[in-house]
């Protein structure tokens, strides 16, 4: 780790101005990802601006029926929040399935969204990686790819986004509130993260110096029965091979609306719009659920070493939807 300056920011505007003005400055939130990267030599900033004290860290109801989550809110606090647990259980479940207790106590909402891929080639600075060193190539092809993408990847990068929380937020149509040098703006959660294309070094649409200050969830009554499921190699503290966040609005035996996102399969939380479209107006039988999942995964392109992922993703999606439908029926 190389020396860097540390500054605790007093207000958001000042923090943004400081970081935006210095290409070698970075924001420091909970540090659970950034500090690892400092040690591994993945990033080498001159200045860390600590924003944990200035960011809001609570959940507040909004007049339009939605809620606003402060970007400084710790993952464990957010998971335990009564309002979130009652109205958006998928978010609470996703948070609790991520990392370990100690990490959740430190990690923030904003930082969780901006955590970087766990691709082992990204983390090994001796290897070529287009995300870490643009143009150097991608070492993942032909390598250890169990955790790599099957949807929306490019020849330049097959990394996945590691967050569980972000998958739930994507399904819930969250909005990210961003403070930039020219004021506040709002970015749809589904638009925040990018597909790799030919610029995998850019994880999100944010500009250098942009600071996430809050995340807003819309009023979504049927999300009160939502669910997050995650397939991984051990029962806790492991990244997703595949995960699914889903909410289903079911009435009179017909699916009116569905919100679905997949984790562990793409460079961003993968909003499953095709599956949602298939399900809208459908009667939830095993066949229709499976058809929806297969429609979503029709474009899946596994690489050597993760050929199993389309099957596992389909099964997980079907199982999650089936769970929700059963829950609705027996309610």
């Amino acid at each position, binding site marked *: 780790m190389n020396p860097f300056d540390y500054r605790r920011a007093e207000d958001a505007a000042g923090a943004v101005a400081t970081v935006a003005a210095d290409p070698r400055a970075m924001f420091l939130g909970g540090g659970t990802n950034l500090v690892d990267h400092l040690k591994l030599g993945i990033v080498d900033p001159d200045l860390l601006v600590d924003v944990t004290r200035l960011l809001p860290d609570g959940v507040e109801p909004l007049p339009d029926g939605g809620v606003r989550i402060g970007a400084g809110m710790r993952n464990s606090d957010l998971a335990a929040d009564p309002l979130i647990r009652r109205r958006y259980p998928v978010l609470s479940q996703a948070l609790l399935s991520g990392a370990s207790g100690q990490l959740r106590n430190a990690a923030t909402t904003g930082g969780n969204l901006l955590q970087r891929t766990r691709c082992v080639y990204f983390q090994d600075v001796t290897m070529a990686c287009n995300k870490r060193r643009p143009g150097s190539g991608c070492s993942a092809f032909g390598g250890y790819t169990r955790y790599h993408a099957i949807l929306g990847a490019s020849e330049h990068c097959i990394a996945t986004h590691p967050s569980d929380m972000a998958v739930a937020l994507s399904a819930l149509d969250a909005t990210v509130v961003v403070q930039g040098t020219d004021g506040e703006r709002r970015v749809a959660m589904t638009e925040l993260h990018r597909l790799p294309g030919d610029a995998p070094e850019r994880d999100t649409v944010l500009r250098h110096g942009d600071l996430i200050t809050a995340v807003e969830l819309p009023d979504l009554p049927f999300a009160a029965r939502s669910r*997050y*499921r995650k397939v991984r190699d051990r*029962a806790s503290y492991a990244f997703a091979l595949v995960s699914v966040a889903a909410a289903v609005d079911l009435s009179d035996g017909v699916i009116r609306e569905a919100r679905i996102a997949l984790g562990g399969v793409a460079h961003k939380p993968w909003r499953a719009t095709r599956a949602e479209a298939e399900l809208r107006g459908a009667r939830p039988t095993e066949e229709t659920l499976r058809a929806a999942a297969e429609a979503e995964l029709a474009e899946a392109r596994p690489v050597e070493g993760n050929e*199993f992922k389309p099957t*596992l993703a389909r099964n997980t999606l079907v199982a999650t939807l089936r769970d929700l439908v059963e829950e609705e029926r027996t309610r």
Partner: protein
Amino acid sequence: MASTSTRAPVGLSSVTRDGIGASPRRPDGTLKVTGEFAYSSDMWMEDMLWGATLRSPHPHAEILGIDVSGALRLPGVYAVLTHEDVPGEKRYGLEYRDQPVLAFGKVRYKGEPVAIVAADHPETARRALERIKVDYRVLEPVSDARRAALDPDCPLVHEEGSLPLHEEHNQRGNRVRYQPIRTGAFADGASVEEVRALADVVVTGEYEVGMQDQAFLGPESGLAVPAEDGGVDLYIATQWLHVDQRQIAPCLGLPADKVRLTLAGVGGAFGAREDLSMQIHACMLALHTGKPVKFVYNREESFFGHVHRHPATMRYEHGAKRDGTLVYATMEIVLDGGAYASATPAVVGVASSLGIGPYEVPHVSVDAYGVYTTNPPCGAMRGFGAVQACFGYESQMDRLAAELGMDPVDLRIKNAVSQGSRIITGQEIDMPMPMAEMLRRAREMPLPPDRSSLPAPSDPRTLPGGVANTSHGEGIVRGIGYGVGLKNLCFSEGFDDYSTARVRLEVVGGEPAVTVHTAAAEVGQGLVTVKGQIARTELGVERVTILPSDTRVGSAGSSSASRQSYMTGGAVKTACEAVRERVFALVRERGLVEDGHPDALLSLSGGKVVSAAEGVLISLADLLGGEAIEETREYHHRPTQMLDPSRGQGSSHTQFGMCVHRAVVDVDVELGLVKVVALDAVQDVGKVMHPQQLAGQIQGASAQGLGLALMEEIQVHDGVIRNPSFTDYLIPTILDTPPMRIDVLEHPDPHAPYGLRGAGEPPTLSSTPAIVAAVRNATGRPLTHAPVRPEDIVGIDPPQG
């Protein structure tokens, strides 16, 4: 301690507490659970320097040049050393001397040490590493172990003629050791085709065991302090002080007595500290700079700094009569030893001799290969050689049972070894081996309740996949599986193994007190407690002090092969007996008993000398006064033999241990998630020395086997470890670990002290195949690779269209 008296000793107020069979508190227990115990990484000296290691970025490359000048110019750097600075022998090794202290000529694995630095701060040292320029010519990695074993055209990892060859191990080319075993018709030259004709039913199988890490919590660390006599004192977390000393001294060009080692606090070992890591490096830098030098590896470096469990590929064929009687078995196992031999020869010796497990089979052919590749070096890990083979032969027994339509336990009982059986090396099992009874006991243990009989909703933590990704219990299939493992305990194959103990009895503050001094490594297993228990039992004195382990006393041998209770326990017992004889001699000298009073009628208890006939004769305090009695003894186990290199015959093992596991799993077959519901064990330990520590050993070994069954695997691609962290290399957490019922048997081994058997390894063998068998039972999948992953259970759909 045998007493022929029927009378209670007169005047003896209390017996000695906390002897063998009790569960006294560990002397280091409180410090460890309160965080106050000093581990090796906590060592500190005011003027010490920090060492750091430059490691090869390539699995295989020629070193064209090393330029350290940039590093030397960095302020705060005291020394930068390469192979040219090694004062003595350039190579060391546990069994073969083939590993460079610092690489010269070539690097043979990614992570191999090339240069070392001492600086005033760890960060300075790290930066100095970045300034060392090494010019490499990258070579093609030799990464396919099977090819290394069998293809004569495979490039060599070690150049022809560069190392002396071990003929007794059939060492040749990339083969570190090749051990064939031939019995029955195979010994007479029969072909497989001929032998196969004797069987009604034949099953074949190919199995793989992944590379497992020992995953100790305390990374490698040590502190070397230069001494005024030109020698060095090394404080180090290791498993065997004297074998370290034996390897370090020649490389430093020093006599052994100038390289003094003291055991520092060990944060787990499991075999990973058998080989040297930074020992020689720290000593070189300390001697070069004249200052103490401390090394601490971080977690990532630790993955490159120690050996791992050999990954194995196995091919089996078993033939049986229709009634299940085994007729023949063939086995080929290839163990990937990586760049240097480490413990590979011994691993091959175990994997071959125990290759078909605890079964009576008249005709056997085994071919076991341990090979050099440019993969990470592999060596000792709990249960080595036997763990890999056990996964293979137990998988085969299940496959055979299915083919025969037999109950898997019945098939095992039908072919089980027992006392008097011979294993495939011709060695007789000359100690109790109640395998059939153990299997019956495992089968008869109560089963956990079926999920369907539980009131819904059941606790999500008990469902496959843990809390956040569970089913409601529908679609979950239960499976049951069994595993039996046969393990050699103590060192094998002709090694004259021994341990040394020095025991001192004296009066301190008016009370008798015992001091026990050995060089044995306490690696967390609790030997430090057991040594005290033995001294209390043998000398009847409760106040026992265990001195720090160091090389001022003779070798204790390694804390491995489940051997320390047996060997160092035996040494402490023997030394105590010698002390006791001198006490009794003193009793006679003082005229406290008549001449000719047999020792057998005397005993020590509650700090007093007791006669079976007359009760308490005198207190030890009064008897000894200011006199101290000290005795040092070496304890040797009975001799063993080498395996002959052509047919693998010979009584190579000291002792056998066995554990039987029954695993119960719930599997979500749709998502590929496994929950181990129960993992119950039956083990014969000969004699329970410390019930609580024994339970810890069995539970821990079972959990380590669970890890290998379901999640633990170092991912090596093109010779490079891809998951060197505890975030990416997964070991079981408490959420993955089921309740464990343990049934302990005590059939004494007549050859061993107290009849005990080493207990720490056998459960590591049997737990893995039992769990995988249970998952197969639930899913019907073949599951030939350990660990089993979700995708192995879910499978892959055939491509659409």
